[in-house]
């Protein structure tokens, strides 16, 4: 079984483009004919991670690996890191500024959403160094031909 690998550099200085990579991945998955719910789960989880990377960490890189059983998304940034991960995972917790809120983000729902839509999430973070978030979403059926 083949594996498709995609890589994206995420520009942290241009908010208007935040989410473009997630849109591209969604369209690739649709073309591949993956299970619709898996596509939605990947799209939402990656989009939340991509937005976080832009608004909290000044951009970064995203690697996506697609097989017929599993989609793995690895988001890597060199931003400020997350001091208290369990606090950050709580619904409603956000350090976003009013400026970010005026852009439609900062409800403190992104990380909880990632957890909800993903099958596995691992957050590796160090203050002052950066954050790597690994998201895994299982694909229920092997109907997709890679």
């Amino acid at each position: 079984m083949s594996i498709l690998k995609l890589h994206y550099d995420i520009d942290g200085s241009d908010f208007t483009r935040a989410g473009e990579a997630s849109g591209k991945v969604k369209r690739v998955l649709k073309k591949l004919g993956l299970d619709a719910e898996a596509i939605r789960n990947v799209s939402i989880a990656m989009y939340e991670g991509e937005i976080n990377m832009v608004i909290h960490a000044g951009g970064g890189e995203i690697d996506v690996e697609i097989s017929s059983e599993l989609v793995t998304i690895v988001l890597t940034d060199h931003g400020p890191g997350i001091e208290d991960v369990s606090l950050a995972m709580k619904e409603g917790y956000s350090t976003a500024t009013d400026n970010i809120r005026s852009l439609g983000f900062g409800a403190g729902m992104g990380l909880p959403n990632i957890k909800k839509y993903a099958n596995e999430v691992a957050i590796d973070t160090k203050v002052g160094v950066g954050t790597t978030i690994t998201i895994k979403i299982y694909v229920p059926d092997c109907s997709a031909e890679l």
Partner: protein
Amino acid sequence: MTVETIKTILNADVLCGEDRLDREVHAACGSDMMSDVLAFVKEQAVLLTGLVNPQAVRTAEMMDISCIVFVRGKRPDGDIVALAERRKIVLLCTKLEMFSACGLLYSNGLKGGHLKK
């Protein structure tokens, strides 16, 4: 309810997707915070929002939301309209504010969704 009916109820202008007004929507979600929308799981929903930036369209794309209604007379710029056109999302614009727009749709039979878990 069709997008055409929503347009009529809200006395809305069509910014793009005039040829797709026959689409059916079964639920509605009103919010200016996109992560709140992303916590919402109903299929075939319409999004009502006061947020006019590309992320409103991208959020709709991620959720398979086929129609966005901008409330309070807000109008997105040409780039946003072009993005929605590429993603085949209908954009409507109403002068009503959020509460009234949602209330009118609700009283005409459109229901809210539910939060996952």
